[in-house]
């Protein structure tokens, strides 16, 4: 008896040392801290980068942003307005509750709530219907061929836990007290939250019960994730170099060369699904911020083309962006469904042609205009605007730069209080509809149409194409419509496109993980060696 006890104790001690030898922590940093842990409150990269480790949607993203089974094992379109999802059995939430169809129905309804920030992903959803414990039908108002792409961004919560903690609705700012989900989570994902100190640290530990550890490819050996935001660029890089953090998501461009030379640092480079462009007021009869009175020069295609020809995009790519940009002539990158290479071409850099076009349009002496630009939103945004303002001034369009923090920039352009502005547009659904509908459809008040089209571009053919892309289930016809929209974009020049952002990730040499174009690290694929 005693010997068995001793043996058991020895075995336990061995197991303990074995376990501690196996403990692998990844210390991760970036400038910003998530401002909530609520899965449907803030659709921001800084929030989802943490939530992606804890919560899961029905459908997961693969390493190249394709779709693969998550909490749903299979899905198909039963009829144009009805999708059926078969759910995974035997999944448990972190608190031990079982996962079933009730949780899915609850979560989709929660994402539909007025205080939800995830409405864009369920914009066509009429209702979610439980068929049996492990089957759910999602009924849509109109046929929605890309519903699975959208639901890959809707996290599934536990209904019982949400009801017990009074968080049936996403966090509401009106409530004068803290909502439970601000600092607490209960997901089904590979890691579970143990410590949440906003702006200081967020600690997650491995969920050994996660169903996906058996799936090939999920080969993470990480037992603990410690996320600590460091706002100051220099300090964040210092912490990486001194070995206090293992992984920095947002190294400043000016430090990249130095980081690449450092022996124990790896820099992963890759594109982000985000495109920068200038949009301009093409509706008003007179621009708000220009020397031209009585008419709007931007209504003239030749003026738009002139500004386009005036941009030396290679100088921006190599000098301002230090190579961390992919030059483009269209409004979304190749990772997005519907992309057609033939329409991704720029008007060439040609200052002489630009001056000629301006003269042809009746502005041989050029004119003055004010460019609005954020200075803390996109990579080197203000520097891009400075460079372009100089290029435009060189061909005669005297450009005054008005750079401001995002907190002032966005309200200004949303009041349409601008003549021309810089915008960067990400595509979370990875489908072209999201960009075309939000940026190019006429602002007619219908949900989603032209919601970020503050230059008020309007083209009936484009609007017709948006309707086709929304409703068409045949992928070939749908892609043809998208390609036509891209052709019109190229010919009509509603925007002056610049580039797709690159997002370098820097990490200690002993870390391996795939670079993701949605700028979201997935720790289920990361290893500490």
């Amino acid at each position, binding site marked *: 008896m005693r010997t068995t006890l001793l043996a058991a104790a020895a075995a336990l001690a061995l197991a303990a040392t074995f376990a501690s030898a196996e403990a692998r922590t990844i210390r991760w940093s970036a400038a910003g801290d998530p401002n909530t842990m609520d899965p449907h*409150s*803030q659709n921001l990269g800084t929030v989802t980068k943490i939530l992606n480790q804890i919560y899961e949607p029905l459908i997961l993203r693969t390493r190249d942003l394709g779709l693969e089974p998550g909490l749903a094992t299979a899905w198909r379109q039963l009829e144009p307005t009805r999708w059926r999802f078969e759910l995974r059995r035997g999944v448990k939430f972190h608190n031990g509750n079982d996962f079933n169809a009730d949780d899915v129905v609850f979560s989709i309804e929660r994402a539909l709530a007025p205080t939800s920030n995830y409405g864009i992903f369920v914009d066509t959803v009429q209702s979610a219907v439980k068929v049996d414990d492990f089957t759910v039908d999602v009924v849509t108002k109109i046929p929605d061929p890309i519903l699975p792409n959208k639901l890959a961004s809707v996290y599934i919560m536990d209904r019982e836990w949400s009801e017990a903690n009074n968080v049936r609705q996403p966090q509401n700012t009106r409530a*004068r007290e803290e909502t439970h989900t601000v600092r607490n989570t209960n997901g089904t994902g590979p890691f579970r939250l143990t410590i949440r*100190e906003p702006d200081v640290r967020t600690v997650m530990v491995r969920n050994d019960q996660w169903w996906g550890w058996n799936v090939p490819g999920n080969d993470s050996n990480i037992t603990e994730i410690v996320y600590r935001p460091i706002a100051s660029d220099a300090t*964040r890089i*210092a*912490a990486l170099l001194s070995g*206090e953090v293992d992984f920095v998501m947002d190294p400043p461009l000016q430090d990249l060369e130095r980081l690449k030379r450092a022996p124990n640092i790896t820099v992963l480079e890759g594109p982000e699904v985000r495109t920068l462009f200038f949009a301009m007021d093409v509706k008003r009869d007179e621009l708000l911020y220009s020397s031209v009175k009585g008419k709007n020069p931007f209504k003239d295609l030749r003026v738009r083309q002139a500004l386009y020809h005036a941009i030396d995009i290679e100088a921006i790519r190599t000098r301002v962006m230090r190579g961390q940009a992919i030059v483009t002539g269209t409004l979304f990158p190749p990772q997005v469904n519907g992309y057609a290479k033939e329409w991704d071409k720029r008007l060439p850099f040609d200052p002489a042609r630009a001056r000629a076009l301006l003269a042809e349009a009746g502005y041989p002496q050029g004119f003055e205009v004010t460019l609005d630009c954020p200075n803390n939103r996109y990579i080197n945004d203000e520097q891009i605007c400075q460079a372009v303002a100089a290029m435009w001034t060189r061909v005669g369009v005297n450009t005054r730069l008005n750079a401001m923090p995002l907190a002032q920039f966005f*309200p200004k352009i949303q009041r349409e209080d601008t003549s021309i502005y810089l915008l960067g547009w990400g595509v979370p659904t990875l489908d072209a509809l999201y960009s075309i509908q939000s940026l190019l459809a006429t602002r007619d008040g219908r949900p989603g149409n032209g*919601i970020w089209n503050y230059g008020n571009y309007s083209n009936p053919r484009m609007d017709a194409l948006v309707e086709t892309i929304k409703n068409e289930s045949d992928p070939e016809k749908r892609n043809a419509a998208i390609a036509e929209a891209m052709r019109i974009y190229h010919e009509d020049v509603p925007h002056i496109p610049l580039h797709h952002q690159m997002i370098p990730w820097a990490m200690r040499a002993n870390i391996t993980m795939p670079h993701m174009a949605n700028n979201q690290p997935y720790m289920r694929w990361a290893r500490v060696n």
Partner: protein
Amino acid sequence: MLAFIVSRLLQAIPVMLTVSLISFAMFAYVGDPVTIMLGQDYTEAQREALVRELGLDQPFFVQFVEFLQNVLRGDFGISYRLGRPVADLILERLPATLELALTAALLALLVGVPLGVYTGLYRDSWLSRVFLTVSLIGVSLPTFLIGILLILVFAVILGWLPSFGRGETVTIGWWSTGLLTASGLKALILPAVTLGLYQMTLIMRLVRSEMLEVLRTDYIKFARARGLPDRIVHFGHALKNTLVPVITITGLQLGAIIAFAIVTETVFQWPGMGLLFIQAVANADIPIMAAYLMLIALLFVVINLIVDLLYYAVDPRLRSGLVASSGR
């Protein structure tokens, strides 16, 4: 004495009201929190609903009066960015800032005063010249640069001290302290030096010039003529008479240290009120900005009061004046 304190406190009320009004008026220009809260995709209806929920559609003075009423009830509202009560957030961050500021102030005093005395007494020695030259750096380099340089040397190159954060903390009641753990103390060194360096050089130069002034006065000559030992002349007579301006400056600088810990806290990701404030500014988080500015105003009022009271302790002339006036 009591009447003095009460009158000083009464004077503080209009100061606080003015500060709150000015800070509140400023918020019209810091940007729109709604856009940040709503993210990339939202409809006009959602936006209007949120503006109504936050009461931002009300006229300025209605918002201001409502804000004052809530403040009087001790309710500073909910942070737009973090979704938590502002009072809780500030209480959570207060210990970090106070520990950092007091350590920096102590460092400035304990190093600055002796250096000032030394350079005052031995004004021509080579060591004094070294101190004075080095102190020029402390006065002229901006805080963030000093912080980055210290990080580069002690964290990146030597690897002795952490480059960011507060280390392990121990919680006593609601007060979280980093003073009781080794990693907490190590993490305190670089930010405290960064924050205190300017004040240290300021105090040193102040004490030095005051000492030089005092050492030329007649009573020091008489004290020496009486044959008092140097120690008593220097510290009992000379130093004590330099303290009035030093106390004023130190007191006001303590307020400045707390208020301007913002830069140091940002460089070292020190989880104090300054970092909270800077992030609130970036996100137009009005409730936090309002509460922070009110707190800093209150702090300056209290520190000024304490400084005034300390004058009585060190300057007998003021005390006798008070006695004489109250005896009349």
